Structure formats: C-alpha cells, structure tokens
C-alpha cells in the first residue's frame, strides 16, 4: 500500500516533487561552483559575463596552490595506507583471533568517528605542540589516519565477516602457512573491501579540514587549509577553481569505488 509507488495516489506526485527539489538542492552548489570556476567575473557574479580558463592558469601558476595540492595527495596516500594496514590488522584480530574483548576493541576503534572532530583536533593540537608534530608530514599523516581508521575498520571487518574463514583453513591444510594462506586466499577474496577502504580513507584525508587547520604551518598545508585561509582573506575565483579540483578528484574516486562495487556483485 504505502510502500508501493502505484498505490500511493496523489501522494506520489508530492513525493516526486519533494524528491526533485531535494535533488536540485543537493546538486545546486556543486554545479554552481564548477560553473563559477569558468566564469570571467572577478567578483563571482553569476551568471558570469563570459567564460574563461584564466583562473585555472592562475591556480597552476601559483606555487602555493600547487604545493598544497601536492601535499594533499602525499598526505592522503600515506594516511590511507596506514589506516588500511592498521585497520586490516585490527580487523583480522577481531574477526579471526580469539580475542576476549573484541567487542570493546571494536567500540574503541570506532570512537574517533563519533567524537566531534573539533574536540579531536584541539586535543591533537595540544599534543602535537608538545611533541613537535605541528607542521610536519608525519603529524598530518597520523592525525588523518586516526580519523580514517574507523571507516577502514568497518569496511574491512564487513569484508572479512562475509568471507568464510574455512576457505583460509582449507588452504592451510593444503600446506600453506597461515600468512601464505592469507596472501593467496583471504586478501584476494576481500580485495574489493581493501581497495574500497583505501579509497575512502584517502577521501577522508583529502577532505579533512578541521584537524588540518591546527596542524598546518608555513612548511606544510593541504589544499583544504589553503582554501580556508584564502577564503577568509579574499573571495577570488581561484577558490572556485581549487574547489572544483577538490570536488572533481573526489568524484573520480567515488566513481571508481562505485564501479568496483558493482563489478564485485
């Protein structure tokens, strides 16, 4: 009845209308920012008087923006690798090992996700000031990894739980050592989860802004930090370009994740 589109009567058009409005609401800012980056108006007038690529030229000509882009990529990659490797270890321990406190460990590993990021940021900042981790690559990477870890743990535990441990046992009885069995059987079988975890861990680092604001310094700032600081001084169309870059990269990665998931089915 109420869960069947054809039987909803006039109500269905109300729902469709709301759906369209919300879809527009969700799409509008993204489309807008992309269009703006090609607009010729210095003052971000919309619709713009003309179209141009000069803001893109300005973006790539500015070593500051370019360095920030590079920093974001490096930090994201390193943070993703760490979050996935550590997460995989934890997931194996929780779903395979005979761990008594597995439930508590799981909860503890998910905690950084539920804590307001601003609290974590201030806490890490306080620690980093003492440990000299501010404005360092390793500081960025580890603080991003802690935010990504809960997500990689969720994805990898799911992956492992949907994979029958008897397969690994069978391989062991075939003569493979535990690690060889994991390498030959378990990891290939959950490779989709592993790749997905890498992508989402990277995306989390790529978009991370609150902790990064505290971590950043003259040596190292990621793209979102550079965006944030520029934004607060001056609203230039180059910001729209940087934003477009950030969005485009995220969209490409999401698309890859979607294709992989679909192929995995």
């Amino acid at each position, binding site marked *: 009845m109420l869960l069947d589109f054809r039987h909803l009567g006039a109500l269905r058009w109300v729902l469709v209308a709301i759906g369209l409005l919300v879809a527009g609401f969700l799409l509008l800012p993204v489309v807008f920012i992309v269009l703006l980056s090609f607009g010729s108006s210095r003052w971000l007038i919309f619709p713009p008087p003309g179209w141009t690529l000069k803001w893109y030229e300005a973006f790539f000509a500015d070593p500051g923006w370019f360095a920030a882009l590079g920093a974001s990529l490096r930090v994201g990659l390193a943070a993703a690798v760490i979050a996935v490797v550590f997460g995989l270890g934890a997931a194996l321990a929780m779903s395979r090992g005979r761990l008594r406190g597995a439930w508590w460990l799981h909860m503890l590993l998910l905690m950084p996700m539920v804590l307001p990021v601003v609290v974590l940021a201030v806490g890490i900042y306080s620690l980093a000031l003492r440990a000299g981790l501010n404005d360092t690559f390793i500081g960025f990477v580890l603080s991003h990894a802690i935010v990504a870890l809960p997500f990689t743990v969720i994805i990898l535990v799911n992956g492992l739980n949907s994979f*029958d441990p*008897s*397969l690994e*046992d*069978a*391989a*062991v*009885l*075939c*003569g*493979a*050592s*535990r690690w*060889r*069995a994991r390498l*030959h*059987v378990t990891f*290939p*079988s959950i490779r989709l989860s592993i790749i997905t975890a890498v992508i989402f861990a990277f995306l989390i680092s790529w978009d991370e802004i609150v902790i990064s604001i505290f971590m950043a310094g003259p040596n190292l700032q990621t793209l979102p930090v550079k965006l944030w600081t520029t934004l607060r001084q001056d609203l230039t169309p180059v910001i729209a370009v940087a934003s477009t870059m950030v969005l485009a990269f995220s969209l490409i990665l999401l698309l890859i994740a979607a294709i992989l998931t679909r192929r995995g089915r």
Partner: protein
Amino acid sequence: MTAWLSIDALSKSFGQSIAVRDVSLEIGRGEFVTFLGPSGSGKSTLLYMIAGLETPSTGDIRLAGDSLLPVAPNLRNIGMVFQRYTLIPHLTVAENIAFPMKMRKWDRQRQKRRLEEMLALVRLEEFADRRPNALSGGQQQRVALARALAYEPEMLLMDEPLAALDQSLKLDLQREIRRIHDSTGATILYVTHDQEEAMRLSDRIAVFHNGTVEQFATPGEIYQKPGSAFVAGFVGHSNLLPAEMFDEAHPAVALAGGDSTGTPGLQPGKGAALFRPEDFTVLRSDTGTAALTAAQTGTITGTITDIVFLGPVVEILVRLASGARILVRQAPDLTADLRPGDQVSLRILRQPWILP
C-alpha cells in the same frame, strides 16, 4: 587392526563449555571411520583438533606413535573437505586442485600428472578451466575432494561434506566417496549427523553424545547391539521396554505387559529390552492367536493407534496395556486389513538386545 592414529584422552573446552571430553579412539590405517552424532556433540571440534585447526585443552593425538600436536596444520599432511564450499573463488578448478602441490613446490611434470589423475578420479575432466562459482554444489565438493587428495595425504578428514546437497546427489557422492576409499586405500575420518550415511559408508562408527564417544563399533554392532539408550535411539528407531531377567537357569525377559520372552545367554539383572520396528509381525487378535505358542518367542498385545503408509513399508503405532508405545514396520500387503483401534498381537521375531 593395529592402531595407527591414536586419540588419547582428548578434551577441548571453550571457556565454560566443554565441547569434547576425554575421548580416546584407536583408528587403523586405511579405515573408514565416521563420527556420528547430533549437532553440537563435538564431532567437528575433534576433527579440527586432528587437523590442527583447534588446539586440544588436554590429551594427545598420535600418528604412528609420534604426537601430532607440535606439528603445524599445514605440515600435518592431512586432507580436509568442509561442509561449506571452500574452493578458492579466484582460481579455476585445475588451479584449485594444483594449489596444495604448488604449496609443496612439486615440479611441474609431477603436478600435471597428478592433476590429470585427480580430475579423472572425480570425473571432472571437462570442467578443469571453470571457476568454482560456475559449478554446482556437488561438483564443487568433488573438486574439494580432489584437492584434498591431490598431495597424497595420509589421512582425509571430511566434515559433513554432503550436508548441503540434495538427496539424490548425496547418494551419488556417497557411492563415489566409497569408491575413492576403496581405490586409494586412504584413511578417512568422516563427520555426519545422518545415520543412514554413516551406515552406508563406514567400516566403523563412533557415536558422539555431549562431547563423549558413546560407542565405537561396526555399523552392524551399532545397530544390533547398541551400547547405550542414546545410541539405540539415535541410530534407527528404538522401542525400549523395561525388562527383568530372572536368572541364568530361566533366561527370559519379563516385559511390562506380563509377557515374557526367552533370551538365552544373558546375565541376570534389570535392564531395557530393545526391539527394532522390524522385529515384529502384527496379527489381529481375533485371527488365530490361539495358534501361537507364547512360550517360544513371545507375543505382546496392544491396540493400534495410528497407521502411516510410507510406500515400501507401513508404520504402525501400537499402544500396550502398560501405556508404552511401540512402532512397528511391516510390508504393506500384510497390513491391508488393519485399522486404528484394532486389538493386535505383536509376535516377536528376534531376541531383543538387552541394553547394559
């Protein structure tokens, strides 16, 4: 048969619960032994301990005199087939069968030869290049069997390998497993909760109950001379009637209804007499009961409460005067004139087995 695999006072507990308690078994080389029991009775746990996938809490497992416990599972040289399909999904059938040979670094020629032998053994030559998910359940289990046998293990362990298959396929594969056992001479330890399967396949059956082995004997003995009421009830249907033996001079069992039946060679004492459903002939009380001489084998009288037609046999439920119920199986043509409510005599065809 001399002991080859000795399981010695083996126990396994998971926290508070004890899955296997103090099990000792001596298994000969080349034997086909089945662990039979209801689910949760510890069969798989014992098998996993033999495979090395679980560590015993106490006790020892010895193969030809040496303890297996310090040996890592991948070095035990044991083949195993699981209930669930455990083929490696991203490898083909041939690659799956060759996997253990690859792990053992056999040379290519030997691998190839053995692979062909194995494919022929399980009759899957034309499926060599398929992926597991393109095979039926029965085919997958046959590949798993080939993979487990490929490296000539000393022992083959199977944990309910046919439980997920449907009945007709099950029969086929049972025949195939039996054939493979006969042609390879492998020692096989087989877990099942299906008594018919156990009967069909095994040289000897170990009946499990609550983590202990209740009886370890040939299928014939298990059926005809069960060691406990549990075994009697789990394997086949059992009609147990309280029995009392008078003395050795008058070897007879007194049944609740007052009838007695001669049972030579029994020790005096109290016990329970086991009758299988096929141990009786049902006769209408009004037709020629007088002709029966109760003294020789005995009869029991009762009332039919239910008749179920099952095709090859008819099951008749009879209530005795004492209130006990007896299930009788008869050929259909012998029961055509019987109706629920009829008074009948059950003529006892065989001496009952007196449970210890």
